């Protein structure tokens, strides 16, 4: 009897806690979604008149489509490059024993601890000194300075759990070095590479301080949202924010479904 009561209590507490967390995390998102559904030009609660006008306007806006395109290209390039750098970096970080390894492990972490506004300013000074014209291309480099180490760490965690003996086994079974990489190393590190890519994309997509300094005249989604908040608020701000959240949710659920389907097929 007592045990049942204890189990009930545990279950109730778990539910209360879960609901609390969900409310705290999602309330701001819901607020911004509500703010986007107003007919009014200003940010006023409670909302008097509901409409999808601002959604239509946002979808139709050439300005918004340009900056979404810029943000996507920026995040896409950063994802590809950071994953490439991070993959080999992670092998150097966690897989191979070499002379400068422990120094490398520390040096690679430093940029992560560097405050991003300062890092952005420093990079801007460098780009000027080198005479590079500022655009989203220079922002790619700036993002990489911060994101490549993060991706390296994410993939390195997977590499730590990887037993190099399986590579030897594959080699012993007649595989060439290239085949070992393709058949064993890459597939086994795939989950880590995936999460690294996801991190790279999301960190680049949402990055404001580095883009502010280094993308020059090109505007990205976070940069635009910020400037609009400071001067010239329109409900397009919460609309674009909500769209972004929904977009991410969509991408994640498609990924989740794909993983479930792939697993079902392999079993």
């Amino acid at each position, binding site marked *: 009897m007592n045990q049942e009561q204890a189990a009930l209590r545990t279950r109730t507490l778990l539910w209360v806690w879960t609901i609390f967390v969900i409310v705290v995390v999602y309330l701001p998102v819901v607020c911004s979604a509500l703010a986007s559904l107003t007919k009014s030009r200003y940010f006023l609660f409670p909302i008097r008149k509901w409409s999808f006008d601002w959604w239509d306007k946002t979808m139709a806006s050439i300005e918004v489509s340009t900056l979404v395109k810029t943000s996507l290209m920026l995040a896409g390039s950063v994802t590809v490059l950071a994953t490439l750098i991070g993959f080999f970096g992670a092998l150097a970080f966690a897989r191979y024993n070499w002379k400068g390894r422990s120094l490398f492990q520390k040096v690679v972490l430093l940029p992560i601890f560097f405050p991003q506004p300062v890092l952005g300013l420093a990079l801007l000074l460098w780009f000027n000194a080198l005479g590079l014209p500022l655009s989203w291309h220079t922002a790619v480099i700036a993002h990489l300075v911060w994101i490549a180490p993060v991706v390296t760490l994410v993939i390195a965690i997977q590499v730590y759990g990887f037993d190099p003996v399986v590579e*030897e*086994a594959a080699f*012993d*079974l007649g595989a060439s070095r290239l085949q070992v990489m393709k*058949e064993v190393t890459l597939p*086994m590190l795939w989950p880590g590479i995936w999460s690294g890519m996801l991190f790279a994309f999301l960190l680049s997509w949402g990055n404001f301080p580095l883009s502010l300094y280094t993308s020059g005249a090109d505007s990205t989604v976070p940069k635009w949202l910020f400037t609009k908040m400071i001067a010239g608020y329109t409900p397009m701000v919460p609309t674009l924010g909500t769209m972004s959240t929904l977009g991410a949710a969509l991408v994640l659920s498609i990924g989740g479904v794909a993983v479930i389907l792939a697993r079902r097929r*392999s*079993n």
Partner: protein
Amino acid sequence: MSETALMGESRQKLLLDLVGVRKTFDGFNAVERIDLSVMEGEFFTIVGPSGSGKTTLLRMLAGMDQPSDGAIYLRGESLNDMPANKRPTCLVFQSLALFPHMTVGQNIEFALKMRKIAPAARKARALELMRVVRLPETYYSKNVMKCSGGEKQRVALARAFAYDPEILLFDEPLSALDYKLRKTLEKELKDLHRETGKTFIYITHSLEEAMVMSDRIGVMRDGRLVQVGTPEEIYTKPSDKFVSEFMGEVNIVQVRPDGAGRYRSEDLAGSFTVNAPPSTDGYVVIRPEFLRFLASPSDADNHLTGRVHNEYSLGSRVQYQVRVGERMFLVEQPRRQSFGGGDVTIGWDAADAIFVAE
């Protein structure tokens, strides 16, 4: 002995020849000048304590480490510059090193896939090998990480057979299994050796395991092969104290000739009859099963007097610890006996003891 006889003279062809093989890691000699010949179709086991260099030796045979010195010949041709993926050897790792992201079938077919063999032919061969290693056909598409310890062993074995190596190398693959399963797999491995006719080189730290399976055994210590011989030779004529101790629990008495045809032990303060070459210092090795309780001291060539300290049941036998002076002796009997608290006399015949020179 009988194994060698069974194989017949025609099979006794030299397959593998190691000449002065040495391996140095940062100035430390892991393997020191090993000379060894392995015959075609032989089950050869290298046994030694951890750190004796046996894994390093095996890795050199597989091509994963290169000898610092010396050469390995396969049918007279040097293997030194041949990488692991080109050698006709295949290693079954201690951790098995199965590919966790593949099914049982994909694991077994790996070597065939690397050779670009068509999927249908691969599957047929994999199913055939699964029969050989006694894995049910339904396991073909099973996730390999969901297999039990014994099943994983079989997958690793089938995967190695699929490579069709001339020599299969084993790095203590059974050490992680429980006793009963290990015993079963030891026998199966020996059966597979007979059925396939391949050459097996097996390493283990358990001489018991080596005894069950091997045609010949090489005992390794500190990077050297101290003795090579059939299981019977190793058991009955250990070349030194180390090998005899490695055989399991034994009683060892250090002796010196007393000049009157008998041998004297300092720490037991007695002299014994020993079958040994004259005037050689050495050790008398007496297995617990050859020590017995005596009704009268004259019932055996040698005797000692002590007290029963403790007794252990070994299932089929009973082992007694007998304290003689400062020393403990192990005596094994088929049945339990009861002793009062008083002195007992234990003894052995000179023919049952083994003498190893110092």
